[in-house]
């Protein structure tokens, strides 16, 4: 869907490039996560890809054609979801949606989406009477009201309660399952784990690593099984711990002996988390 080749970008007033030769591709029908600490160039990359920034070096192809060759028609095909509320506050939710809908040739069934996201009953309320969570949900409806082929989402679940975040994530997955392509930028690694087919970690304007979350976990995790156990006559608080190589565990006598003779409290494969990978690759504490 997108091929980004050796793209660099420098803001007019800067001395240094913000984007330093990034190369990646986004395939049709995948959710691609763009991750990294603040200020590494994620937003700039997104802004280049939604044509808010021009004057970059390198090549970006969308459906095989140079992005620079697209005019305003490009926006008929994409949807952009912002982290912050982006609506006319003195208009109702429905007036907002109707206004933006009329700008597009393709028009999705926004009533159904609003019903699913629980804001349909409030559609005749002015947006300034909406809670933050309702505004975020309305942002999503705004982003997909033209049935876009590509969806750019920036922190789509921030500010949502767990149940609405779940509904939104399900909708994003369904959108992908129907062939939609998503570029997701977020700090929430749970969302990444749940949604992304592939992720790219950005560090200092460059892509440090691209892979599937599963492969990253395998690559950066320890292939071990950790067992916490007690003697049989002890309580349920684990007092001892042992670690075994995953690859040879099926012929490890010590492991089997432990299984037979001790009281096992917990047993985990030491698969790493995306949080750990984030910190390891970027060298930055996620919420620092």
């Amino acid at each position, binding site marked *: 869907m997108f091929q980004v080749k050796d793209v660099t970008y420098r803001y007019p007033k800067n001395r240094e490039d913000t984007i330093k030769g990034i190369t990646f591709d986004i395939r049709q029908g995948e959710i691609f996560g763009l991750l990294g600490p603040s200020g590494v160039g994620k937003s700039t990359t997104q802004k280049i890809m939604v044509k808010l920034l021009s004057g970059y070096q390198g090549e970006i192809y969308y459906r095989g054609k140079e992005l620079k060759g697209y005019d305003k028609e490009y926006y008929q095909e994409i949807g*952009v979801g912002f982290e912050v509320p982006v*609506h006319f506050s003195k208009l109702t939710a429905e007036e907002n949606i109707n206004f933006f809908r*009329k*700008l597009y040739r393709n028009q999705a069934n926004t009533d159904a989406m609003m019903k699913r996201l629980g804001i349909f009953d409030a559609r005749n309320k002015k947006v300034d009477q909406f809670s933050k969570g309702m505004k975020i949900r309305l942002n999503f409806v705004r982003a997909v009201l033209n049935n876009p082929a590509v969806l750019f989402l920036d922190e789509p679940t921030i500010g949502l309660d767990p149940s609405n975040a779940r509904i939104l994530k399900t909708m994003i997955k369904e959108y992908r399952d129907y062939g939609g392509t998503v570029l997701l930028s977020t700090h929430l690694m749970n969302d990444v784990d749940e949604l992304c087919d592939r992720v790219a970690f950005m560090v200092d304007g460059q892509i440090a690593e691209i892979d599937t979350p599963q492969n990253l976990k395998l690559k950066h995790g320890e292939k071990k099984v950790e067992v916490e156990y007690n003697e049989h006559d002890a309580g349920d608080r684990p007092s001892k711990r042992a670690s075994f190589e995953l690859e040879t565990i099926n012929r490890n006598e010590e492991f089997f002996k432990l299984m037979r003779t001790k009281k096992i409290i917990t047993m985990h494969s030491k698969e790493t988390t995306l949080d750990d990978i984030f910190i390891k690759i970027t060298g930055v504490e996620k919420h620092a």
Partner: protein
Amino acid sequence: MPNFLVLLLGEIKRLQRYNIMTASVVVALLWIGVLYLTEIPDITFIFPMLIYVDSTSMAILLVGVTIFFEKQEGSLHTLLVTPINKKDYLLNKSVVTVATSIVTLVILYLYAAIFKEIDMSFTGLLGAVILVSLFHSLVGFLLTYRSRDFTALLINMMKYMFIFMIPTLLEYIRIIQHDLVEMILYLAPTKAAIILLYAAAGETELWEIIYALTYLGVGSIVLFMVVLKKFEQFAVQESGV
């Protein structure tokens, strides 16, 4: 529906909802108050002055207010990633601004025609208001681009008033009487504006009308091109960079 029309209807609806239209009518009523308090029955001389102040300063303000509302609410972000044309977006704001100036003109002219004496061509005033308001709506864009917030816009507008609007007005009512100042003021767009508005009284020399029409007409085209070009930069800035 063409996007220009969608934008136009949206802009008009927002003018109502954000009470900008109401504010504009209130200003028109204030001008009526000024006319009411004027004891001179024939207001042909004072009338263009009020229209001059309204179609210059209000045009600048109106453009600034609508853009700052959009900035503040983030709706400008989302407008920038829709399939609307930059020209349509800008022209829309100018068209609405001109329309608001026309509404003020109609209200004031009706009052003047019914309760006072006025010897001015309405058509002439209408043409002048369209051109003056259009030009100043474009000035409004440039001042808005250069202003970080609404307060900064007001300060920039005050500068414009002190440099262009007030000297022009003072010279026109002969408080400032100096040949050199008079010559220099021909460089100011406000001089062209006041000449064109007073031309509706039918006593302006032809060369002055041609000068004013050329200044504001050509000026509007040039200014629009500058506004359009600078909008790109403004959009990048407003996209959070």
